[in-house]
Protein backbone atom coordinates (compact mmCIF):
# COMPACT_ATOMS: atom_id res chain seq x y z
CA UNK A 1 0.00 0.00 0.00
CA UNK A 2 1.33 3.34 -0.90
CA UNK A 3 1.76 5.99 1.71
CA UNK A 4 1.13 9.51 0.60
CA UNK A 5 1.12 11.05 4.03
CA UNK A 6 3.71 13.57 2.98
CA UNK A 7 2.26 14.30 -0.41
CA UNK A 8 -0.91 16.20 0.36
CA UNK A 9 -1.83 17.27 -3.10
CA UNK A 10 -3.08 15.32 -6.04
CA UNK A 11 0.08 15.79 -8.02
CA UNK A 12 1.96 13.30 -5.97
CA UNK A 13 1.11 10.16 -7.84
CA UNK A 14 -0.56 9.50 -11.13
CA UNK A 15 -3.90 7.84 -11.23
CA UNK A 16 -3.87 4.25 -12.34
CA UNK A 17 -0.17 3.83 -11.74
CA UNK A 18 0.84 5.06 -15.17
CA UNK A 19 4.35 6.37 -15.31
CA UNK A 20 4.49 10.15 -15.39
CA UNK A 21 6.74 12.16 -17.60
CA UNK A 22 9.89 13.35 -15.95
CA UNK A 23 9.32 16.43 -13.82
CA UNK A 24 5.55 16.28 -14.05
CA UNK A 25 4.88 15.24 -10.54
CA UNK A 26 5.90 16.18 -7.09
CA UNK A 27 8.44 13.86 -5.59
CA UNK A 28 7.08 11.16 -3.38
CA UNK A 29 7.92 12.15 0.14
CA UNK A 30 8.38 15.82 -0.66
CA UNK A 31 7.54 17.84 2.37
CA UNK A 32 4.46 20.03 2.24
CA UNK A 33 6.09 22.94 3.99
CA UNK A 34 9.51 24.14 5.08
CA UNK A 35 8.76 22.71 8.49
CA UNK A 36 9.68 19.21 7.42
CA UNK A 37 8.01 16.31 9.08
CA UNK A 38 10.38 14.30 11.21
CA UNK A 39 11.26 10.81 10.14
CA UNK A 40 8.82 8.42 11.63
CA UNK A 41 10.06 5.40 13.47
CA UNK A 42 6.67 3.78 13.85
CA UNK A 43 4.72 1.96 11.18
CA UNK A 44 2.48 4.11 9.04
CA UNK A 45 -1.11 4.24 10.28
CA UNK A 46 -3.18 1.58 8.63
CA UNK A 47 -0.24 -0.13 6.97
CA UNK A 48 0.41 -3.51 8.43
CA UNK A 49 4.01 -4.74 8.30
CA UNK A 50 4.31 -5.88 4.76
CA UNK A 51 5.51 -9.26 3.65
CA UNK A 52 7.09 -7.47 0.71
CA UNK A 53 9.52 -5.67 2.96
CA UNK A 54 10.29 -8.79 4.93
CA UNK A 55 11.02 -10.61 1.69
CA UNK A 56 13.16 -7.78 0.30
CA UNK A 57 15.05 -7.65 3.57
CA UNK A 58 15.74 -11.36 3.30
CA UNK A 59 13.57 -12.33 6.24
CA UNK A 60 11.02 -14.32 4.24
CA UNK A 61 11.73 -16.96 1.61
CA UNK A 62 10.73 -16.27 -1.96
CA UNK A 63 8.47 -19.35 -2.08
CA UNK A 64 6.44 -18.05 0.82
CA UNK A 65 6.16 -14.61 -0.69
CA UNK A 66 5.19 -15.98 -4.08
CA UNK A 67 2.30 -17.83 -2.47
CA UNK A 68 0.70 -14.58 -1.37
CA UNK A 69 -1.79 -12.74 -3.61
CA UNK A 70 0.19 -10.74 -6.14
CA UNK A 71 3.40 -12.31 -4.92
CA UNK A 72 4.39 -13.75 -8.29
CA UNK A 73 4.11 -10.40 -10.02
CA UNK A 74 5.98 -8.64 -7.27
CA UNK A 75 8.82 -11.15 -7.41
CA UNK A 76 9.12 -10.69 -11.17
CA UNK A 77 9.11 -6.92 -10.88
CA UNK A 78 11.70 -6.81 -8.12
CA UNK A 79 13.90 -9.30 -9.89
CA UNK A 80 13.99 -6.91 -12.84
CA UNK A 81 14.77 -3.98 -10.58
CA UNK A 82 17.40 -6.06 -8.90
CA UNK A 83 19.07 -6.81 -12.22
CA UNK A 84 19.21 -3.10 -12.92
CA UNK A 85 20.70 -2.47 -9.50
CA UNK A 86 23.34 -5.10 -10.23
CA UNK A 87 24.28 -3.28 -13.40
CA UNK A 88 24.69 -0.03 -11.53
CA UNK A 89 26.57 -1.77 -8.74
CA UNK A 90 29.22 -2.94 -11.17
CA UNK A 91 30.03 0.56 -12.37
CA UNK A 92 33.42 2.00 -11.61
CA UNK A 93 34.82 5.49 -11.77
CA UNK A 94 36.25 6.32 -15.19
CA UNK A 95 40.01 6.55 -14.81
CA UNK A 96 40.21 10.02 -16.30
CA UNK A 97 38.16 11.30 -13.38
CA UNK A 98 41.03 10.53 -10.98
CA UNK A 99 43.39 12.63 -13.04
CA UNK A 100 40.82 15.37 -13.43
CA UNK A 101 40.40 15.59 -9.68
CA UNK A 102 44.14 15.63 -9.03
CA UNK A 103 44.65 18.33 -11.64
CA UNK A 104 41.95 20.44 -10.02
CA UNK A 105 43.43 20.31 -6.52
CA UNK A 106 45.07 23.54 -5.39
CA UNK A 107 48.87 23.29 -5.44
CA UNK A 108 49.76 25.27 -2.38
CA UNK A 109 47.06 24.37 0.12
CA UNK A 110 49.29 22.33 2.40
CA UNK A 111 52.71 23.47 1.19
CA UNK A 112 55.04 23.58 4.17
CA UNK A 113 57.16 26.74 4.48
CA UNK A 114 60.83 25.81 4.54
CA UNK A 115 63.68 27.96 5.90
CA UNK A 116 65.26 30.21 3.27
CA UNK A 117 68.46 28.20 3.00
CA UNK A 118 66.52 25.03 2.06
CA UNK A 119 64.37 26.64 -0.57
CA UNK A 120 65.34 26.04 -4.19
CA UNK A 121 66.66 29.08 -6.02
CA UNK A 122 64.58 29.84 -9.06
CA UNK A 123 66.74 30.12 -12.15
CA UNK A 124 65.79 32.96 -14.46
CA UNK A 125 67.74 35.63 -16.40
CA UNK A 126 67.43 38.20 -13.61
CA UNK A 127 68.85 35.84 -11.01
CA UNK A 128 71.65 34.82 -13.36
CA UNK A 129 72.48 38.50 -14.03
CA UNK A 130 72.66 39.24 -10.30
CA UNK A 131 74.88 36.21 -9.72
CA UNK A 132 77.16 37.29 -12.58
CA UNK A 133 77.45 40.84 -11.25
CA UNK A 134 78.25 39.57 -7.74
CA UNK A 135 80.90 37.18 -9.08
CA UNK A 136 82.52 39.91 -11.21
CA UNK A 137 82.53 42.29 -8.26
CA UNK A 138 84.04 39.64 -6.00
CA UNK A 139 86.66 38.81 -8.63
CA UNK A 140 87.54 42.47 -9.00
CA UNK A 141 87.92 42.90 -5.26
CA UNK A 142 90.09 39.80 -4.96
CA UNK A 143 92.24 40.81 -7.95
CA UNK A 144 92.69 44.31 -6.61
CA UNK A 145 93.69 42.99 -3.21
CA UNK A 146 96.14 40.56 -4.78
CA UNK A 147 97.81 43.26 -6.88
CA UNK A 148 98.55 45.51 -3.91
Amino acid at each position, binding site marked *: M*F*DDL*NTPDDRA*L*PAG*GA*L*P*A*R*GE*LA*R*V*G*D*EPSPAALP*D*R*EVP*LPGAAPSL*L*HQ*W*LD*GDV*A*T*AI*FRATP*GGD*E*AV*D*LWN*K*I*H*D*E*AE*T*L*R*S*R*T*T*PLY*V*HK*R*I*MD*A*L*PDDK*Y*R*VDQPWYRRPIPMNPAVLAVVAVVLIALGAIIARAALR
Partner: protein
Amino acid sequence: MRWGWRAPARKGIFRPQDGVLPAPGGVSRQLQAPRLTNPAADPTQPVDQADLDQEVIRRVLGGSRDAFELLIVRYSDPLYRHALGMTGSPDVAEDILQQSFIKAYQHLSEVRGRFDAWVFRIVANACKDWLKNIRRTHVSYDEDDQPSSYSTPEEELDRNELRSDLEVALAALAPSLREAFVMKHVEGRSYEEMAELLGTTVGALKMRVHRAREALQHLLEEKYA
Protein backbone atom coordinates in the same frame (compact mmCIF):
# COMPACT_ATOMS: atom_id res chain seq x y z
CA MET B 1 15.49 -18.45 -3.11
CA ARG B 2 15.68 -15.68 -0.61
CA TRP B 3 15.66 -12.21 -1.93
CA GLY B 4 17.66 -9.89 0.24
CA TRP B 5 19.18 -8.41 -2.93
CA ARG B 6 22.13 -10.63 -2.26
CA ALA B 7 23.11 -7.77 -0.06
CA PRO B 8 25.95 -8.27 2.34
CA ALA B 9 25.82 -7.60 6.04
CA ARG B 10 28.86 -5.41 6.01
CA LYS B 11 30.50 -3.88 8.97
CA GLY B 12 33.00 -1.73 7.16
CA ILE B 13 31.58 1.43 5.72
CA PHE B 14 33.22 1.13 2.35
CA ARG B 15 34.87 -1.68 0.56
CA PRO B 16 37.42 0.22 -1.42
CA GLN B 17 38.02 -0.61 -5.04
CA ASP B 18 35.46 -3.32 -4.89
CA GLY B 19 32.91 -3.84 -7.56
CA VAL B 20 31.82 -7.24 -6.38
CA LEU B 21 29.68 -7.95 -3.42
CA PRO B 22 31.10 -10.21 -0.76
CA ALA B 23 29.36 -13.31 0.41
CA PRO B 24 26.34 -12.57 2.57
CA GLY B 25 27.37 -12.06 6.12
CA GLY B 26 30.93 -11.45 5.11
CA VAL B 27 32.83 -8.73 6.83
CA SER B 28 35.08 -6.96 4.46
CA ARG B 29 37.93 -4.96 5.80
CA GLN B 30 40.40 -6.21 3.27
CA LEU B 31 42.47 -3.65 1.54
CA GLN B 32 43.12 -3.53 -2.12
CA ALA B 33 44.41 0.01 -2.28
CA PRO B 34 48.15 0.54 -2.05
CA ARG B 35 49.50 -0.24 1.36
CA LEU B 36 51.09 2.61 3.17
CA THR B 37 52.49 0.72 6.09
CA ASN B 38 54.91 -2.15 6.12
CA PRO B 39 52.97 -5.21 5.07
CA ALA B 40 55.86 -7.51 5.74
CA ALA B 41 55.39 -7.24 9.45
CA ASP B 42 52.46 -9.62 9.52
CA PRO B 43 50.64 -10.09 6.24
CA THR B 44 47.88 -12.11 7.90
CA GLN B 45 47.06 -9.32 10.32
CA PRO B 46 44.11 -7.25 9.14
CA VAL B 47 45.10 -3.67 8.56
CA ASP B 48 42.78 -1.02 9.88
CA GLN B 49 41.50 1.05 7.01
CA ALA B 50 40.99 4.09 9.20
CA ASP B 51 44.63 3.98 10.31
CA LEU B 52 45.79 3.87 6.72
CA ASP B 53 43.57 6.80 5.88
CA GLN B 54 44.93 8.77 8.81
CA GLU B 55 48.44 8.08 7.62
CA VAL B 56 47.60 9.39 4.16
CA ILE B 57 45.94 12.44 5.64
CA ARG B 58 49.04 13.17 7.71
CA ARG B 59 51.14 12.98 4.57
CA VAL B 60 48.85 15.30 2.65
CA LEU B 61 48.75 17.81 5.48
CA GLY B 62 52.52 17.56 5.62
CA GLY B 63 52.74 18.84 2.08
CA SER B 64 52.46 15.69 -0.03
CA ARG B 65 49.69 16.65 -2.40
CA ASP B 66 50.15 13.53 -4.47
CA ALA B 67 49.31 11.29 -1.51
CA PHE B 68 45.72 12.46 -1.77
CA GLU B 69 45.37 10.36 -4.90
CA LEU B 70 45.52 7.27 -2.68
CA LEU B 71 42.30 8.37 -1.03
CA ILE B 72 40.72 9.09 -4.40
CA VAL B 73 41.64 5.68 -5.75
CA ARG B 74 40.50 3.99 -2.57
CA TYR B 75 37.06 5.57 -2.30
CA SER B 76 36.04 6.89 -5.68
CA ASP B 77 34.15 3.80 -6.83
CA PRO B 78 31.59 3.51 -4.01
CA LEU B 79 31.18 7.27 -3.99
CA TYR B 80 30.74 7.34 -7.76
CA ARG B 81 28.12 4.61 -7.58
CA HIS B 82 26.26 6.53 -4.92
CA ALA B 83 26.30 9.70 -6.99
CA LEU B 84 25.27 7.77 -10.08
CA GLY B 85 22.39 6.11 -8.26
CA MET B 86 21.27 9.43 -6.86
CA THR B 87 21.52 11.50 -10.02
CA GLY B 88 21.14 8.95 -12.81
CA SER B 89 23.73 10.79 -14.87
CA PRO B 90 27.37 9.78 -15.31
CA ASP B 91 28.39 13.34 -16.12
CA VAL B 92 26.73 14.75 -13.03
CA ALA B 93 28.12 11.94 -10.90
CA GLU B 94 31.64 12.72 -12.13
CA ASP B 95 31.20 16.41 -11.41
CA ILE B 96 29.85 15.74 -7.94
CA LEU B 97 32.72 13.36 -7.26
CA GLN B 98 35.28 15.92 -8.39
CA GLN B 99 33.76 18.76 -6.40
CA SER B 100 33.43 16.57 -3.33
CA PHE B 101 37.05 15.42 -3.39
CA ILE B 102 38.26 18.98 -3.90
CA LYS B 103 36.16 20.06 -0.94
CA ALA B 104 37.50 17.16 1.08
CA TYR B 105 41.06 18.15 0.19
CA GLN B 106 40.51 21.75 1.18
CA HIS B 107 39.02 20.79 4.53
CA LEU B 108 41.16 17.75 5.20
CA SER B 109 42.45 19.13 8.47
CA GLU B 110 38.88 19.08 9.78
CA VAL B 111 38.44 15.31 9.49
CA ARG B 112 37.37 13.86 12.79
CA GLY B 113 36.80 10.14 12.87
CA ARG B 114 36.63 8.04 9.75
CA PHE B 115 37.58 9.68 6.48
CA ASP B 116 35.33 7.41 4.45
CA ALA B 117 32.22 8.36 6.41
CA TRP B 118 33.20 12.02 6.28
CA VAL B 119 33.74 12.10 2.54
CA PHE B 120 30.58 10.07 2.00
CA ARG B 121 28.57 12.76 3.76
CA ILE B 122 30.09 15.39 1.48
CA VAL B 123 29.05 13.41 -1.60
CA ALA B 124 25.63 12.54 -0.19
CA ASN B 125 24.90 16.18 0.61
CA ALA B 126 26.06 17.27 -2.83
CA CYS B 127 23.74 14.72 -4.43
CA LYS B 128 20.77 15.83 -2.38
CA ASP B 129 21.50 19.46 -3.13
CA TRP B 130 21.63 18.64 -6.82
CA LEU B 131 18.34 16.78 -6.65
CA LYS B 132 16.68 19.63 -4.80
CA ASN B 133 17.95 22.36 -7.05
CA ILE B 134 18.21 21.00 -10.52
CA ARG B 135 15.57 21.52 -13.14
CA ARG B 136 16.37 18.34 -14.89
CA THR B 137 16.30 17.58 -18.51
CA HIS B 138 16.51 14.02 -19.61
CA VAL B 139 19.44 12.36 -17.99
CA SER B 140 20.02 8.74 -17.26
CA TYR B 141 22.90 6.44 -16.58
CA ASP B 142 22.60 4.79 -19.96
CA GLU B 143 23.85 7.90 -21.67
CA ASP B 144 27.43 6.88 -21.76
CA ASP B 145 29.14 4.29 -23.85
CA GLN B 146 29.42 1.41 -21.41
CA PRO B 147 29.71 -1.87 -23.26
CA SER B 148 26.46 -3.73 -23.63
CA SER B 149 26.12 -6.98 -21.73
CA TYR B 150 22.85 -8.06 -23.26
CA SER B 151 22.59 -11.15 -25.39
CA THR B 152 20.12 -9.86 -27.96
CA PRO B 153 19.05 -6.45 -29.25
CA GLU B 154 15.51 -7.15 -28.00
CA GLU B 155 16.80 -7.83 -24.53
CA GLU B 156 18.84 -4.67 -24.65
CA LEU B 157 15.78 -2.67 -25.72
CA ASP B 158 13.73 -4.13 -22.88
CA ARG B 159 16.42 -3.38 -20.37
CA ASN B 160 16.87 0.15 -21.65
CA GLU B 161 13.15 0.73 -21.32
CA LEU B 162 13.12 -0.62 -17.78
CA ARG B 163 16.16 1.45 -16.94
CA SER B 164 14.51 4.57 -18.24
CA ASP B 165 11.26 3.85 -16.38
CA LEU B 166 13.16 3.05 -13.22
CA GLU B 167 15.02 6.32 -13.49
CA VAL B 168 11.74 8.20 -13.92
CA ALA B 169 10.29 6.39 -10.92
CA LEU B 170 13.38 7.13 -8.81
CA ALA B 171 13.16 10.76 -9.87
CA ALA B 172 9.68 10.86 -8.42
CA LEU B 173 11.02 10.08 -4.97
CA ALA B 174 12.06 12.71 -2.48
CA PRO B 175 15.86 12.90 -2.18
CA SER B 176 15.87 11.29 1.24
CA LEU B 177 13.81 8.33 0.01
CA ARG B 178 15.92 7.92 -3.11
CA GLU B 179 19.06 8.08 -1.01
CA ALA B 180 17.78 5.37 1.32
CA PHE B 181 16.72 3.16 -1.59
CA VAL B 182 20.00 3.57 -3.44
CA MET B 183 22.07 2.85 -0.35
CA LYS B 184 20.01 -0.22 0.53
CA HIS B 185 19.34 -1.77 -2.84
CA VAL B 186 22.01 -0.47 -5.18
CA GLU B 187 24.94 -0.23 -2.82
CA GLY B 188 23.78 -3.19 -0.73
CA ARG B 189 24.38 -1.62 2.64
CA SER B 190 22.91 -2.80 5.91
CA TYR B 191 20.54 -0.56 7.82
CA GLU B 192 23.12 -0.21 10.57
CA GLU B 193 25.76 0.93 8.12
CA MET B 194 23.36 3.41 6.57
CA ALA B 195 22.48 4.77 9.99
CA GLU B 196 26.17 5.25 10.77
CA LEU B 197 26.80 7.07 7.50
CA LEU B 198 23.73 9.27 7.57
CA GLY B 199 23.67 9.93 11.29
CA THR B 200 20.13 8.76 11.78
CA THR B 201 18.35 5.78 13.28
CA VAL B 202 17.78 2.35 11.82
CA GLY B 203 14.04 2.74 12.34
CA ALA B 204 13.89 5.96 10.39
CA LEU B 205 15.90 4.45 7.55
CA LYS B 206 13.72 1.36 7.39
CA MET B 207 10.72 3.61 7.06
CA ARG B 208 12.35 5.55 4.23
CA VAL B 209 13.32 2.36 2.40
CA HIS B 210 9.82 0.94 2.84
CA ARG B 211 8.21 4.06 1.49
CA ALA B 212 10.58 4.15 -1.45
CA ARG B 213 9.88 0.52 -2.29
CA GLU B 214 6.14 1.03 -2.10
CA ALA B 215 6.33 4.09 -4.31
CA LEU B 216 8.48 2.32 -6.90
CA GLN B 217 6.27 -0.72 -6.90
CA HIS B 218 3.22 1.48 -7.33
CA LEU B 219 4.81 3.29 -10.26
CA LEU B 220 6.21 0.26 -12.03
CA GLU B 221 3.97 -2.70 -11.27
CA GLU B 222 1.29 -2.01 -13.86
CA LYS B 223 3.80 -2.00 -16.67
CA TYR B 224 6.22 -4.66 -15.53
CA ALA B 225 4.53 -6.96 -13.04
